[in-house]
Structures are given as C-alpha cells and as structure tokens.
C-alpha cells in the first residue's frame, strides 16, 4: 500500500502506511515520526499507532495543503527500511507473577490449546514482543505478536474490574492494565512494573518500537517487589 495522507481535523492530518498490523508499517510510522521531529515544521504533537501517524501542527504556520505537501516530501525522502536499524527501541524485561489467583484465565487458555497452565506461562515468556502503540489509556502498551499456540479470543462479557498490573492476552496482542479498569482481555498474571502512577509522576517507561520480554517470578518475589495478590471480584 502506498502511504496516504488524510485530513484528521482542523489542526491535524493522519498518514497511513498500511491497513493491517505489520512490523514494517509500524517501523515506517516511527521512521516518519522521527523525521518529522527533526524537520523544521511547526508540529504540536504526534500520535504513532500500529500503522498510522497522526500529526498535529500549528495552523498559524501551515495550511492543510502545505502540511500535506511537506509531509509527502519527507515520506519520499525516507531511506529504505533495510537501511534503518531494525531494533529501533530499548529492551525491557517485565517480571510477572503468573498464578490462578491473579491470572484467572490461565486455565481457559490452557484448555483452549490442550496444554498445561505451566506451558501457557512458558509460551508467554518464550517470545519477545514489539510495542506497536501506546494509548487508549495512559501507560497502556499494545504488544505483539502473540504466537498462535497462545492466542485467545476476548471474553464474551468483559469483567467490571481488572486490578492494575494485570497481564493480559487478546487474539494476537498482549498488554498490561496500567490502572484498575473494566476489560475483556484474558488475564494470566500480574506485574509490579510501573506503567502509570500519576501521584508519583510515573508515566510509561515503554515507547513504541521497544522490545518487551516477560519473566516469571515467584509469589514471594512479587510480594517483595510491592505486589498485591488482591483477588478478582
């Protein structure tokens, strides 16, 4: 798909690199994001997502027509991806306490794949995941891809409250709930990895393009790190 630039409001445009989830499109998004940041365009902020980049600009400096032409020129001048370092971000290791008490869907996923709960945990820790996008809520990182032998559909009916730090799987994506909230993803464990603590000024150490690995820890280690084994309602 050729990149397209589409209006996204009085003060924004959105650039689409693909209409599906792909690592390549996501790399192009981040490549354009940094090219725009180092250009002399008057940009207010950008929102990188899976395969699109939304760009808010200063309308007192650029018109809709101008900004499209400028962004088009930047896209055309982007180097081929092969020349770009494939590892754009940092690597994070996130410790997770995987257990039925804090991960009520471990058994469901095990049953779905005809394996044990231990194997579900092994599989989740086996692969590394790319952070495709941040958003929806503060600190929420969409990570993928979850291997086929671990994928699980969303719950038919969302839970009304999922505790903060819950580690979750939905289809090909995995994520951590930064705040207690309702949700329909499968919950398999819990982490103390800080994602969003507004009172302490902590906001997301993960960035789009980063790599994440999960590491299983014991209940004692989890509690020692300040974890709470608060059960599900």
């Amino acid at each position, binding site marked *: 798909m050729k990149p397209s630039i589409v209006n996204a409001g009085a003060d924004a445009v*959105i650039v689409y690199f693909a209409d599906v989830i792909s690592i390549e499109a996501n790399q192009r998004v981040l490549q354009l994001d940094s090219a725009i940041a180092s250009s002399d365009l008057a940009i207010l902020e950008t929102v990188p997502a899976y395969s699109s980049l939304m760009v808010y600009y200063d309308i007192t400096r650029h018109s809709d027509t101008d900004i499209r032409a400028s962004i088009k020129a930047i896209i055309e001048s982007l180097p081929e991806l092969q020349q770009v370092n494939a590892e754009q971000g940092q690597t994070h290791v996130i410790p997770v306490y995987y257990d039925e008490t804090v991960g009520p869907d471990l058994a469901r996923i095990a049953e779905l794949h005809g394996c044990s709960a231990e194997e579900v945990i092994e599989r989740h820790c086996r692969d590394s995941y790319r952070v495709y996008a941040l*958003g929806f*809520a503060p600190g929420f990182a969409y990570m993928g891809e979850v291997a086929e032998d671990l994928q699980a559909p969303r719950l038919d009916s969302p839970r009304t409250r999922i505790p903060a730090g819950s580690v979750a799987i939905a289809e090909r994506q995995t994520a951590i709930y930064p705040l207690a909230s309702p949700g329909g993803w499968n919950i398999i464990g819990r982490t103390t990895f800080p994602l969003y603590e*507004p009172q302490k000024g902590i906001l997301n150490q993960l960035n789009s393009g980063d790599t994440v690995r999960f590491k299983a820890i014991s209940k004692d280690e989890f509690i020692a790190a300040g974890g709470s084994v608060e059960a599900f309602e």
Partner: protein
Amino acid sequence: MIEVIEPGMYATIQDFGRLGYLKKGLTRGGPIDENAFLWGNYLLKNEPGAAQIEIVLGGSKFKFSTAAAVAVCGADVSLKLDDEERSIWETFQVEAGQVLSIGPARSGLRAYLAVAGGIQVKPQWGSCATVKREQLGGHRGDGSALQKGDTLAIESSTCELTQRIPWRYRPDYSKPPVLGLIPGFQYDQFAMAEREKLSFHEYKISQQSDRMGIRLEGPAIEYAGKGLVSEGINIGSVQVPPNGQPIIMMNDRQTLGGYPKLGNISPLDLSRLAQCRPGQTVQFTRVEVAKVQQQLKNYYDFFGITPACQTDH
C-alpha cells in the same frame, strides 16, 4: 482561598488541558466549552489557559476567604452573592467572607467560574485539568471532582471596573446548533448514501454523553468498509460504532481507537455542542478545512492563544 460549600452535580478544575502527551496515552482534558472558558479569562485579563471551575448544571456554592474579582460564563445560571443577584458574562467583586451561589442552569449545561489570576492548583504533566478516567488532575491530583469542604488557593484581587461580554457574542444555548463537519479519516470509505445521512437528518443528544464523548441518536449510519487497526482520535472526531449511532469525541477521549470516523467537527462548533442537553437536536453541515483554519486563526488572535504557548506548558 475558596471553600466548596456545595459542589453541585459535578464540578471539576480545568485549565487549557494537557498538551504533548498523546503519544504516551494521556488525553488533553480541559474545558469542553472552550469558548465560555476563554471569555472568563479574557474578562479578568488572565492567561488564556488559567484554571477555572467547570460546573455541570449549576447548584454549587463557594465561600471566599480572599477578596477576588470573578466572572461566570457559559450556561445560563442565576448567580447570588450572599443575597444579592449578580449576572453571568461579566466581572464582579467578591469580598472575603461572601458566599457565591450558582443556581440551576436555565439553558446550557456547563458554567465556568473564573477568578482573577486563576485557581492555583499544582500541575501534573503541565496541566491541572481533571480527567476522571485517568485518575489525574484536579486539586487532589487524582482526577476526582470537587467535594464539600475542599479548599482552593486563589490570589487576592480587586474588580476595578465591570467588564462585560457584548450581547452579540453571547451564545443562545437553547437553539439547536449547526455543526460543521470537515470530512476526514474514513469518510471516503463510507457509501455516499450513508455519509450524507448526517447532512439530511437531525440527531438527538443521548443521555449517555460525558466529557469523553457526546453520543447521538438518529438514523443509523452503516460502515461497510474494512475493519480498522487502532489509530489516533482528535477532539471532535465523529466515530461510528457498529450500531451506527455516531459519537462525537470530546476532551477526555481515549487517545487511540478502532471505530471508523467520518471526519471532525470544527473546534469552533464544539463549544456549542458541549452546552447541549440530552434530548436537544443538532444539525450538520459540510465545511472546508481552509475556511475553518482561517476562523480558528482569528479566534486564536482574539483570545491571545499561540499554538506555541500550547506546547510551552
């Protein structure tokens, strides 16, 4: 200081909003009737983004222990300073010890109480805007609304001369607004007959509307295009979920979403939308982005907003 005697149904601290953190998942927040908010700060010669109290439907009481020049703009509420009547859309003096009562709104939904110098609240990520869903902002810093007994810091000030907003600038919130739609996002992927429904029908404001989004009820709009991968959402984006009933995303919107969007409502029309009550109707008309940008530039000039100052926060 201002002491909250009665918060009313829902009163929150709002400044111009949190800018520059969409990338990290923080939404903007801020006054959803930005126009009324800006008039308040304009009257008091405050910075355009100085913090105010956004009051839904009125019914609030505040006791001042510091003398201050104040103004209330927005919804048509009655005002009483102790037992004396005061008017909205103009400045007046509150002496230390006096109680300002904001009555129920006769038209409109949100009134803004502005104080000279702004309400003094510690910013988080550059703003004190209250966003409930993010547990962020407000004077507790946890996204909670004002509660009985809360105290808010203000500067002492004097209202030398009454400043008034001319009548021609005061919106009539009882009239159905016409919202300008800038076609965008997936507009071209909607069938023509579907996307034109907005132009030919009235839509009613649903009860399930809040600072995240204003839900509309009317002829369902069908989207037969491809499923979407989550992408950015603007303030004013017109989302069409599977039930076909459009939602206009407002200041507390989630930063990413996967529903198709027809485009965006002109920022200048969102203030009027923010004052619509459930059951009120709205109409849509297509507008050109170049025209909206020109109007927006004039608006920025008038209120002294520079997009650079938006990122300075």
